[in-house]
């Protein structure tokens, strides 16, 4: 069992919340302020959000949630290399929650279905755009945990080990989730 994201930052942490730099002797170019983290990892997290959620507005909300959550832990990763995986774990966890909430809202008629024809994609044909919309509509019928694992693997192209770490579960669980998601999508989209 891998650690959950909240347990991860065993490394650094200094005053992300205040947006200030850590003392020079501690940082030596290794720690990240909120501004820097935003600049460096914001684009990646927005893209990840769009791919997981299929909606730009939700992706931007996700980005805010990630940084608010990160700031509340009142620490800053000393090791910049560890910052992105940690933020990704937070993002995946929050996206998973958003998807579950979205499904409940749809169930009770509290939310309009998302227009997946508007999913931003660069350099795609009309057929490809239609295919993307079909894929996301099919993914809406799949449980959130399966959807997230499948998208991390095939939309993000992450190795299974990274997907497992991001999802906070074992490799075997990740494989099973991806396979189940694939079977469900094949049923909807055809093999």
């Amino acid at each position, binding site marked *: 069992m891998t650690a959950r994201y909240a347990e991860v930052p065993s490394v650094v942490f200094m005053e992300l919340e205040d947006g200030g730099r850590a003392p020079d002797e501690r940082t030596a170019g290794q720690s990240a302020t909120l501004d820097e983290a935003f600049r460096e990892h914001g684009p990646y997290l927005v893209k990840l959000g769009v791919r997981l959620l299929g909606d730009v507005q939700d992706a931007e909300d996700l980005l805010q949630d990630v940084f608010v959550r990160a700031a509340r832990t009142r620490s800053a990763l000393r090791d910049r290399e560890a910052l992105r995986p940690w933020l990704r774990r937070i993002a995946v966890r929050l996206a998973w929650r958003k998807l579950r909430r979205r499904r409940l809202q749809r169930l009770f008629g509290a939310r309009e279905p998302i227009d997946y024809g508007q999913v931003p*994609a660069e350099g795609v044909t009309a057929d490809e755009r239609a295919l993307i919309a079909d894929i996301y509509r099919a993914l809406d019928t799949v449980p959130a945990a399966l959807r997230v694992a499948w998208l991390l693997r095939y939309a993000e192209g992450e190795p299974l080990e990274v997907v497992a770490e991001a999802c906070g579960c074992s490799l075997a669980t990740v494989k099973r989730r991806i396979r189940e998601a694939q079977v469900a999508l094949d049923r909807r989209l055809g093999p």
Partner: protein
Amino acid sequence: MSDSLEPRREIQSALHAVSTRFDAHDAARLRAKVEQRLDRSRRVRQRGLLVTGAACMTIFAWLGAQVNGTPPRHRVVNPVTEPTIAAEARALPDGSRVIPLLPGTEVRSHVERAGEVHLELVRGHARFEVRPSTTRPFQVSAGRITVQVVGTVFEVRRDTDGGRVSVEEGVVVVDHEGRSLRVSAGEVFDSREPAAERSPVGIDERQPPHPEREHAEQRGRSADALWQSVDVARREGKPREAEMALRTLVRDHRKDPRRAMAEFTLGRVLLDDLGQYVEAADAFVRARRASTSKALAEDALAREVEARARAGQSMEARALAERFVREFPQSSRLASVRARGGLEP
């Protein structure tokens, strides 16, 4: 590592194309939103801490009041270690009240429960308002004096050379030197008086010889008629008659609005005409307690200082004078009170 089941190539390629632009403007906008949310959550957290702190303090204060304020249902007091009643009036479990009348008054509680009360006046002067009960023994001791009560209002004063019991309502039995004396309302027992000179019921010798008989003659008269008698007696220079009429007034017309004035007039008659200084001081105390007028309370306290001083109770006079200075700093009587209370150098 590879998957046994993979999506079609065109699906993967379409998904890889999903992306969005995120420029510096977007970053600044979202960064500002994050800052706003963090500020808001900080404020909410601070408010939550304040509310939680206030709630905790309220709960602790309430618990403290519960623990300290609950009267014991059944309390037997160790006579040596038990703290004493002093300084302010105190209600007993049976509804009776003990009111210290002099600074430094000390009342020790030996037994204090619904079925039995035994108090000791260690020093000073106190008033006891005892709720009537035929079954519960209520006992107050002051040195060699022991007072048994059924239901009454009386005062006990303890001095270095003896003690004094004055009864305002009802009847008490005073045990002193192996004798039991019955003291009724309006009567005073003073242990400092020689036993031979004391009346059979322990009445102060300065009282009229047959106060009960005289009181019986006055009984049934209206308050107005009694006031008239007081005026006539004082005009004719018969202070003893005025005293009896006034005692009947305060005894039989307790709810009369002029009761405080009657007590005050009684104090003046006792002080100025009869030379009964201690009695006079007690009357002024009662006048103060019954008074709703600040002016009368001021006069009564000033005269009480004078009565205590003339009775040779210099400590009490001084304490009362200090109290007068505190309570009536603008009074025209201030100089005379200070002089009588021994506050002047």
